């Protein structure tokens, strides 16, 4: 029997209740040790460290970007059902400006040396390996054009790169701060006009968000292989971002409810809808990944295919990872998350979201690490390919724990004693009475 619930918060605990004061230092210390340990274990090899660090930084960044999208699209569509989970997304989005600190280990070596993560930053950078002939032909075809490297340097240079990243973080930080502040103000006053303000802000913000995600994804990950280009890549990045953000929000809700917080506000109906969204984005990810692959595969142009060829070759190992991704990131979650029962069962959902986050991490690893192989590992060892061993795995695990620790520390810093659920949102009643058909 269904009864209408009043539009007010009934959970006994709706904030961290001081737990962040204990948790934050632990997380930050673990994080600093983890990252430092990785750097030391890789014998201060900046290239190797930077690449694994980039995987983890991108992991954290995509989740926060996805959360920012979740908040913005909620206002843009005047969503009522997700008001009770929106605050968690707002809090994660607010981590974005602080994440700029975590971006510094990538940016500083780039700015102050001709080394660092990106090949295009190196002094004698030229297009290498498989693509040399293509470039030679391209240049020959139009002798008036300067070499491709020169053309690309107009965009891919350290100054412009740094400026762009400041702009991205300003856009993200501005949006996140606006949404969280306005929402917190509404907690105090209950002013319905604030909802209208956020809604009006969300439309132009979404345009700025889209542009920043497109260019930041190209800068952060696609430019690792400066010759390669795919207009589908930003969408791929975005699909992974939203999927991981939905998983992170669900995971946080599940965790908070297990510790007795916001127990009444997030119901099985919300989990069901989050599950549906995750299912949708699993399919969307697969659709985009395949769209990107199919066009490149069919056109069969060397300057595009080499990127996939390196990742598909079963002989040097990355092909196995590609298959793991295809099966693990698409087929398994597709079948697992299709059913209604699974989405309404908190234990199964917990397994699913952790699994999806692991898969998203592997997805980023698959994007980044083969580039390390191409650009650096071949130079060190003739037969290329990162040698996977206990040491590598330990180092990479340490880096992941480290970055996640730092991220958790930042999150606790942001959360503080803020309420974990919106207190006086005008659509709170709708959310509390939300029911899935």
């Amino acid at each position, binding site marked *: *029997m*269904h009864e209408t619930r009043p539009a007010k918060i009934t959970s006994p605990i709706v904030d961290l209740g001081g737990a962040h004061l204990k948790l934050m230092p632990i997380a930050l210390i673990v994080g600093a040790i983890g990252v430092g340990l990785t750097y030391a274990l890789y014998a201060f090899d900046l290239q190797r460290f930077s690449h694994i660090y980039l995987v983890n930084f991108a992991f954290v960044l995509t989740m926060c970007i996805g959360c920012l999208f979740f908040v913005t699209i909620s206002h843009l569509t005047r969503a009522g059902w997700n008001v009770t989970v929106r605050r968690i997304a707002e809090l994660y989005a607010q981590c974005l400006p602080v994440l700029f600190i975590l971006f510094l280990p990538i940016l500083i070596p780039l700015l102050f040396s001709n080394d660092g993560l990106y090949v295009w930053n190196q002094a004698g950078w030229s297009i290498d390996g498989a693509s040399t002939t293509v470039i030679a032909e391209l240049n020959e075809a139009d002798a008036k054009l300067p070499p491709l490297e020169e053309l690309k340097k107009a965009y891919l240079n350290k100054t412009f790169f740094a400026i762009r990243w400041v702009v991205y973080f300003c856009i993200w930080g501005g949006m996140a701060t606006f949404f969280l502040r306005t929402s917190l103000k509404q907690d105090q006053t209950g002013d319905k006009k604030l909802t209208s303000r956020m809604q009006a802000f969300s439309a132009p913000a979404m345009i700025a968000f889209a542009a920043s995600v497109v260019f930041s994804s190209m800068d952060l990950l696609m430019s690792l292989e400066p010759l390669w280009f795919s207009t589908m890549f930003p969408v791929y990045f975005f699909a992974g971002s939203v999927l991981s953000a939905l998983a992170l929000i669900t995971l946080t809700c599940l965790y908070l409810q297990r510790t007795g917080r916001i127990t009444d506000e997030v119901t099985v109906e919300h989990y069901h809808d989050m599950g549906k969204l995750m299912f949708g984005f699993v399919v969307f990810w697969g659709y985009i990944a*395949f769209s990107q*692959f*199919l066009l490149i595969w*069919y056109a*069969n142009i060397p300057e595009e295919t080499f990127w996939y060829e390196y990742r598909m070759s079963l002989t040097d190992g990355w092909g196995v990872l590609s298959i793991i991704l295809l099966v693990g990131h698409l087929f398994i979650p597709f079948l697992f998350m299709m059913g209604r029962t699974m989405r309404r069962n908190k234990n199964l959902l917990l397994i699913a979201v952790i699994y999806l986050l692991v898969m998203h991490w592997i997805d980023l690893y698959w994007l980044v690490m083969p580039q390390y192989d191409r650009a650096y590992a071949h130079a060190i060892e003739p037969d290329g390919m990162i040698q996977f061993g206990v040491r590598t795995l330990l180092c990479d695990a340490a880096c992941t724990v480290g970055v996640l620790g730092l991220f958790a520390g930042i999150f606790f810093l942001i959360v503080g004693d803020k309420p974990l659920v919106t207190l006086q949102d005008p659509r709170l009643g709708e959310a509390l009475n939300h029911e899935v*058909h």
Partner: protein
Amino acid sequence: MANETNNSSDKELVGLLAQFDDPTSLLAACNNAREAGYTKMDAYTPFPVHGIDPALGIKRSFLPFIVLAVALGAVVLGLGMQFYTNGGGIGDWSTDEAAIFPGYRFMISGKPYFSLPANIPVTFEVIVLSSAFATFFGMWIINRLPRLSNPLHRVSRFKRVTNDKFFLMLEAKDDKFDASDSEAHLNQWGAVAIEEVNQDLTDTKLPSWMAPAALIGALLLLIPPVAIFSVYGSTNRKPRLHVVPDMDWQHKFKTQVLSPNIAEKDDPVYLFENRRAMRQPVEGSVRFGSLEDDSEMFRGIKKEFSGQAATVGLKSNVLASTAVQEEENPDQWITGFPEGFKVNEDTLARGKQRFEIYCSVCHGYAGNGDGLVNQRAIALAANGKASWTAAKSLHDPTVTDSVKNPTGRIYDTITNGRNTMGPYRDQIPVEDRWAIVAYVKALQATGITAPGAEATESEAEEAGEPEADESAEPAAETTEPEAEASEADDADTE
């Protein structure tokens, strides 16, 4: 409520319809009815009411599983369809023998006949389409649709179900149903009004106008096909109707044509600088399936010598024959038949047929070198009207010697010509050339020589051999007999 109607013969009680004024009381009644043990009942509301499914005790539909099964079937169907139509073989996709299913074998963008990435979009669409159909028609079947009438529509009170009233119907088919008991129950559960729903059995007859109307309709439907059929055999001087002009007049050039002046000005501009409207193949490109890398099959040369004279097949006739003669290594020829060719009754019969079309005109049906062209040319030569090198007898020791003239060399002779014999590379396909070789070997094995052939042969040898060594005998002088030969060819082929 009038229970008497239940007894009348032309009506059948379907159930009891109870009206409620708000969703809460309807939900309560549904719960009560379920708890009272009713199983066959349904609720009607102006909008979806939360919690009505569990209140009515409705189990979740098994429609999703129907759709899942159909979708999985569609995967097989979609992939299988493409596999079949593209003639997808398993294994080496470059040869037709590999085809398990002989489909159309369109080579698209140089991709394998069956390539999964290319087939996924189509398979995906087939899944979507069949899932949509499965959902739609599955829903119909589960709901027992289409239904032309529903007795509920005869209850005037029921019309407000799309507006502001809520209804619960207990069906008469339910074991628990009893007209008076159920009515009491419904009253007890707070029904505002209760009505009997009756099926009017007189309605089962068709209205009298319907049969003639259907007949007329069917006749009217025949008009379009009859009209089309009547035009089908007629002639018309009017120009054809162009429904899609873009497809009838395409902006394209056909192959092998000159490009017109596309500038439409005095200063001409052509599509390509050499005035062609098509690109020539890139130098060194090989047509699909024409790589001919099996030197035994295509050149009669052993694999270990395949590096020699590698471009013979690409050179012009004259160049090819000279090149082969210059570079010929007596050990290079294969002595048997290549792996890809089987000597059996069929291939021998084929060889005989081809031999009689292409070779017998000069070499004679028995291979004695007494073909009609040969006889005529010698007659003309005797009158000083032609210069002719007599065709060789295939029973000549230099030809039958399997050491000096192994099968590979005979094949090469047919392919590239030898001495004054021209190349037949362009007229006779590879398999047929080997069939002819097999037939020639069979002819030689018989050892039959025509009476009087010895004489002509020895004369021919004396005359022919020195000339052959020069090997640059101008072709012009042999034109006449060759023309006759080709006429003979045509006649034979027909």
